[in-house]
């Protein structure tokens, strides 16, 4: 039914239906609102009961407090972790490096294999592809304990290698990109072969540019998985190699008073900010990626 065929009653009903939806929408964004508020409140405002619903006096104290020694003041986020070179920003850098390097490398590796599975014919192709598909069914909990032992054996504990390399083979990315590449016409590849292009060159020059939308959609998910990964870094890192999720996980203490709240809200804010920005920039790709992967199921 379209809007112009509706009776006035139906129109009112339709608008009324929005009321619960909008209430729900407000509930959805409360955590974000509370996070921004908490990040810029003073400690004394954070200690108020009941909590203030707006902000009286926005300050940057939770990030850096020049008067940290005074009562009702505390070390800001960037004044913490003094025993670590770079403090909090070190963890931030760790997370960025791991997320970016792993995402880029995982996509390249997966797309190369996806191209071979989509466009090459060779003995054992189906068996290998089934092996990759089958591995998607195995939950990560099965492999994580031996992986810890392998990484330990390699001497990688507490290194970037431990955070990046084991997550390189991304079976779902391979599967997703292969499905996408199946639609690329063979003629295009054959023409390049006739011109004497090497297979790697075909992958780099012809295939990759054509699958950029799929790579972006997949890349967003791989990046998100990296950025939020808690368990693996919790196991294989300590001290200065910790990543943001591990640090954040130590910041909830339900029994402490409002004192630490501001700092942990400040941390939440700058940790989730890149994701929120990326989301708002790439929302279309996210939606399309989800729709595509969903439809494949």
């Amino acid at each position, binding site marked *: 039914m379209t809007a112009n065929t509706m009776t006035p009653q139906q129109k009112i009903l339709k608008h009324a239906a929005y009321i619960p939806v909008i209430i729900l929408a407000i509930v*959805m964004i*409360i*955590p974000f609102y509370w996070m921004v508020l908490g990040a810029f409140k003073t400690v004394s405002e954070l200690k108020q009961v009941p909590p203030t619903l707006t902000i009286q006096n926005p300050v940057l104290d939770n990030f850096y407090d020049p008067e940290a020694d005074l009562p009702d003041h505390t070390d800001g986020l960037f004044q913490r972790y003094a025993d670590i070179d770079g403090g909090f920003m070190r963890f931030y850098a760790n997370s960025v490096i791991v997320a970016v390097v792993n995402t880029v490398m995982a996509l390249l590796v997966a797309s190369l294999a996806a191209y071979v599975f989509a466009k090459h014919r060779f003995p054992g192709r189906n068996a290998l592809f089934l092996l990759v598909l089958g591995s998607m069914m195995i939950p990560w909990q099965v492999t994580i304990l031996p992986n810890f032992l392998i990484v330990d054996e390699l001497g990688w504990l507490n290194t970037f290698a431990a955070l990046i390399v084991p997550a390189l083979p991304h079976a779902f990315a391979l599967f997703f990109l292969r499905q996408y590449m199946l639609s690329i016409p063979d003629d295009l590849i054959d023409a390049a072969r006739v011109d004497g292009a090497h297979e790697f060159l075909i*992958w780099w020059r012809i295939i990759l540019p054509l699958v950029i939308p799929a790579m972006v959609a997949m890349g967003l998910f791989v990046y998100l998985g990296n950025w939020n990964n808690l368990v693996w870094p919790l196991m294989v890192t300590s001290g200065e190699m910790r990543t943001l999720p591990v640090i954040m996980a130590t910041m909830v203490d339900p029994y402490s008073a409002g004192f630490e709240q501001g700092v942990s809200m400040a941390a939440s804010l700058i940790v989730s900010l890149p994701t929120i920005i990326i989301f708002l920039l790439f929302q279309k790709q996210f939606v399309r990626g989800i729709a595509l992967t969903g439809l494949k199921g």
Partner: protein
Amino acid sequence: MATAPSTQDVPLQDTALPTPPKISKKTLIQRIWEARISYFMLLAFFIPFIMFIILPMVASAYLAMTDYSGARTQEIEFVGLENFRELLSFELEQVDRRVDAETGEIMFRCGRRYATETEAAAYTADGTACTPAYVDEDEVLSDGYDTVGTFFRSDHGAYIFGAQDHRFWKAISNTTIYTIFSVAFSVIIGLGLALALQAQSVLNMILRTVFFLPSVTAGVAITVVWGHLFRGTAHGLINSVITGLGREPIEFLANADWTLPIVIMLAVWGGAGYNMILFLAGLGNIPEELYEAATVDGASTTEKFRFITLPLLRPMTLFIVITGIIGSFQVFDAVYILFANNNGGVGHISDSALTIVSYLYERGFTNFEMGYASAMAWVLFIIIFILTFINLRVGRANEAH
């Protein structure tokens, strides 16, 4: 590989007839050699794939049958299926309700004492929790078995479910409850939102973004914020709303009854918008003509929803439910962030936050029982596998109708 049948039909003759080159004429070795570039290109994926997925899988299956602790110097002892036996062995025993020998009144257990119903009410008023009492309830289970729960309780008796690793069963129970509610709510709300925001308008676009935002950003950072929203009795936003309404504040994070509801709420908050996007994609695939034809036939909106929208959304719903169950059974982050203590314990009060994965983490990495934890990982895999299989079966059966 598949051999082309045509080669068999070619009569064997030594004449120089030009036979077209057939791939199947070549030996397997030749074909592998010709495809060497393909294999070479696969190496970048398959070397780490074998090292960090296949090898660990095999190792995990082996470790699950050992008592390995994770220490390098340990002599690993092969224990066969002992870990699985310890994990899964359970007893279900019927017990009779304890009755007062003289009056025949049913009895309760309050702390260490037995009490009649009226006495029990007095104890409860004093703050001692009372539970129904059964005959020999502590002796009925074999040695080494602990009570997980009682079922089918009546005035005459009950069934006591006991297990060797009662915490594992508690974890399964928690995880199952979490999965049922988080999947059900996020599917229903996701579908509702998709239907409500289906039309293309600016307001709908904004609302879609708002609902979708949590599923993208619902990481560790926002879970921390939720921790603050629920925290304490005074500083938390939610409790200040509750006290504002004139109710007693609730210690959400320190009350076992609230543990699962909070984790479920977080899951629904982070999952409903994602499901909405999937349902919107599903709705977009339903041909408009079907609705038009139904309108011509005089179908009502409800009828169109029941006989067109719902059936055609079924594959998408099946996909969402299956992936939702798989993901929910692996829940860890939220319970760890909100409820783990500083000593590596992840159970929270009376194990109310214990999930399969958090228990696996605790046994494997806090207690260093890697063999046992590996066995748990395989049990989790089997549970997920069976659930997926059942789901697919049910989905197919429904589609056939």
